């Protein structure tokens, strides 16, 4: 009996020692990413600079994508790029301040301000990327609206040629309705953009969710309208219009 108790205690001790060893082996990895600088000023500065660089890189990626986006107008591109560059300049100013800190409390405040003042990942980039999507869809919506007479004219010309256009007329009516609904969603989305600023965080999360809902619906509507247009085009061409 005593032998069994002794064996049990030994097993428990071995298990506890193993768990403790595992805990120690994982702890340094966690500390490397957050919360281990203690009173080491250079460690805090290096941490802050790494966070700043992540954000500058992400903003430069945004700028490159906006520049390459041929479905935006020049003014739309300029607005988003200007916003991104303003944030990059602000972050670089903060980096200069952080690099010059001699007091660890001030350095920690600078690091805090990377989040509190800029909210690059939480607010700025989601807002700007959704604005790109919004601008693109607004331009597409306008292209649909200005193209509606062209679509209608092609249907009427086919009808005058003796082609039965009943189906195409229904598709056209659906297209007009979908484009109209997309316009409503886009107007709503446009109204949400100005409130997506760092000062409104974390309320911006709900605003962003609403914005995404509007844009998804507009996207679905415009895709459906594009399908209607494609169907009308292929059908009229097949009918010899």
């Amino acid at each position, binding site marked *: 009996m005593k032998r069994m108790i002794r064996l049990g205690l030994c097993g428990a001790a071995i298990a506890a020692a193993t768990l403790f060893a595992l805990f120690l082996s994982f702890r340094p990895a966690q500390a490397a990413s957050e*919360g281990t600088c203690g009173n080491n000023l250079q460690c*805090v500065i290096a941490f802050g600079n790494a966070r700043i660089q992540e954000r500058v890189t992400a903003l430069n990626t945004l700028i490159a994508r906006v520049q390459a986006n041929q479905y935006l107008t020049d003014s739309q591109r300029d607005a988003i790029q200007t916003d991104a560059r303003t944030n990059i300049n602000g972050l670089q100013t903060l980096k200069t301040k952080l690099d010059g800190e001699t007091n660890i409390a001030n350095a920690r405040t600078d690091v805090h301000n990377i989040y509190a003042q800029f909210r690059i990942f939480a607010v700025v980039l989601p807002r700007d990327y959704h604005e790109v999507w919004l601008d693109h869809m607004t331009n597409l919506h306008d292209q649909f609206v200005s193209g509606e007479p062209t679509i209608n004219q092609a249907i009427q010309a086919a009808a005058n040629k003796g082609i039965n256009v009943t189906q195409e007329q229904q598709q056209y009516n659906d297209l007009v309705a979908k484009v109209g609904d997309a316009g409503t969603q886009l107007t709503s989305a446009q109204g949400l953009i100005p409130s997506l600023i760092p000062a409104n965080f974390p309320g911006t999360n709900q605003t962003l969710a609403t914005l995404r809902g509007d844009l998804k619906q507009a996207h679905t509507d415009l895709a459906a309208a594009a399908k209607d247009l494609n169907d009308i085009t292929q059908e009229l*061409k097949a009918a010899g219009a």
Partner: protein
Amino acid sequence: MKKAGDRLMTTPVQRVSMQMKPQRHPLFASVVTVAAIGAMILLGGCGNRSIQTTQNNANQPGSSQTSHQGSSTSQSSSSATQSLDNLNNSINGSVNAMGNDQSNANTSASQSQEGEQQP
């Protein structure tokens, strides 16, 4: 009996008529030349406008009643379909590219929940 006014109307006309006769030849030639050129310009202009009007009408529904206009409708129908095809191609390209913008927006939204880190 003639009134004074009757005389005044008759006599000057006769006088002018008689006086104009010898001076009429050079002026008349110039006027006729200018008028002829003007008429040619006007006729030419009217002809162009007439063709233009016919072409525009041919793009409107219900404009084909004769065989000639039927030909115009055939042309306008093809033209309208071509315009439709161009619009369709342009919009298709934009809709396809819209997917990239949606993807980038989705990625940015998925990163928006990142919490604040402190060293």
